[in-house]
């Protein structure tokens, strides 16, 4: 069970060449911007086509270049939250969430949207447009919409990057609740070291289109494998970790 990927993709002189797998836990794709993290998500979701590789989710093959299997994004069971959230600006909050209910019957759709509005504390906002709600609220709507279709895995592309710190903390705890509630693999893309450290079961460190290290947060931050990871941990560390934070636990 879980998600396993092996991807090769060349675009405009950049080469992404990665291979990793995760179980029903939260994996953070960690690295500087331009390391290929978001591209990985797009390839997994079917929004871009790998030149070569295999993508498997819970034993189902979504993509296999040698077998010429390439499911369209519509048939890949992912909940995808985009960096800018991609809420439809012309639809109300409720319509946005309902748009994620493709394939569910009428009764289930209504019950599920009600449940989502409750879980994500969106009550009272149903009839507003995305432009009329706050950043944190938009976040919750995007998560609710992504989970409507009962995805088998969640792909989150720096979903908290646009938020203020207090709301970020709230969103992180919400994400932990979601993991308990839905029990599916979650791939979280971030370049925020605290986010990586506090949220991840496993960290997959990206640099220059390659995986440099895979491990628990303590393994990665305690024993960075090679100069790339070390630099990433150090640079990111000085930039966003408050003084006194002990990253070298154990």
């Amino acid at each position, binding site marked *: 069970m879980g998600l396993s990927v092996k991807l090769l993709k060349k675009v405009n002189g950049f080469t992404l060449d990665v291979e990793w797998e995760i179980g029903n836990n939260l994996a953070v794709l960690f690295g500087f911007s331009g390391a290929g993290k978001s591209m990985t998500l797009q390839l997994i979701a079917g929004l871009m086509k790998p030149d070569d590789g295999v993508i498997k989710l819970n034993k189902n093959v979504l993509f296999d270049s040698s077998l010429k299997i390439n499911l369209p994004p519509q048939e890949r069971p992912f909940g*995808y939250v985009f960096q*800018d959230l*991609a809420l*439809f600006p012309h639809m109300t909050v409720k319509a946005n969430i309902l748009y994620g209910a493709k394939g569910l019957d009428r009764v289930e759709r209504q019950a599920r949207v009600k449940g989502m509005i409750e879980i994500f504390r969106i009550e009272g906002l149903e009839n507003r447009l995305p432009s009329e709600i706050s950043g944190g609220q938009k976040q919750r709507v995007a998560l609710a919409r992504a989970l409507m279709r009962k995805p088998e895995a969640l792909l989150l592309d720096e979903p908290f990057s646009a938020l203020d710190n207090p709301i970020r903390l709230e969103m992180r705890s919400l994400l932990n609740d979601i993991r308990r509630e839905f029990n599916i693999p979650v791939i979280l893309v971030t370049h925020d070291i605290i986010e990586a450290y506090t949220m991840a079961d496993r960290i997959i460190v990206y640099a220059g289109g390659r995986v440099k290290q895979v491990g628990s947060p303590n393994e990665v931050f305690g024993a960075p494998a090679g100069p790339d990871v070390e630099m990433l941990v150090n640079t990111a560390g000085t930039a966003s970790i408050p003084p006194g934070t002990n990253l070298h636990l154990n």
Partner: protein
Amino acid sequence: MSNPVFFPLRLSFQVASVATLLVMLVGGLIAYLLARKNFKGRTLLDILITLPLVLPSTVTGYYLIILFGRNGFVGSFVYDWTGWSIMFTWYAAVLASFVVALPLMIKTTRAAIESVDENLINASYSLGHSELETAVKVILPLSKKGMLAGVVLSFARALGEFGATLMIAGNIPGRTDTMPLAIYSLANSGEWSSANFMVLFLTLISGFFLYITNRYGMRTV
């Protein structure tokens, strides 16, 4: 004998309305293809469709004769099968208006479609919605302002079409004399009062359409 002022007026609106309807359907589809699809001959199609925007409309009309005339590439088949030719009918005026208005619809609509955030389209796909559903429920509502601008400009252009219409529909009083053609005849024969009325009318209505496109923030072309 039909009224020499009101017949052209009615005919012009009839021709422009039908042409605009066709322009909406065909232009919308081609704009979508040009904006979102990569296919062989895309650049060529783009150039061919844009040509009537820069060519003298008599040249556009000339090509239409070559294509749809009784001895034309398409026209000869139609004539052999049905004994009918589009030449010198009001349908020919529709065809002429359609061809010259089409690039305006395509340019504005294409720009509007291209301005829709790619992530919204991706989000729709990954939420399980097909390309058609996404086009109707996401792309269309988000680019409708640009499309509306295209429709209004197309209608104004269709209403004012002269050269190509003259070439393939002729200037037959009571049959194919749209307003611009009637104005030409009236001026030639020195009937200034009727000409003044039509000129003023066309100017006002075209100005009104431009006002509408500006008013609703649809600055284009």
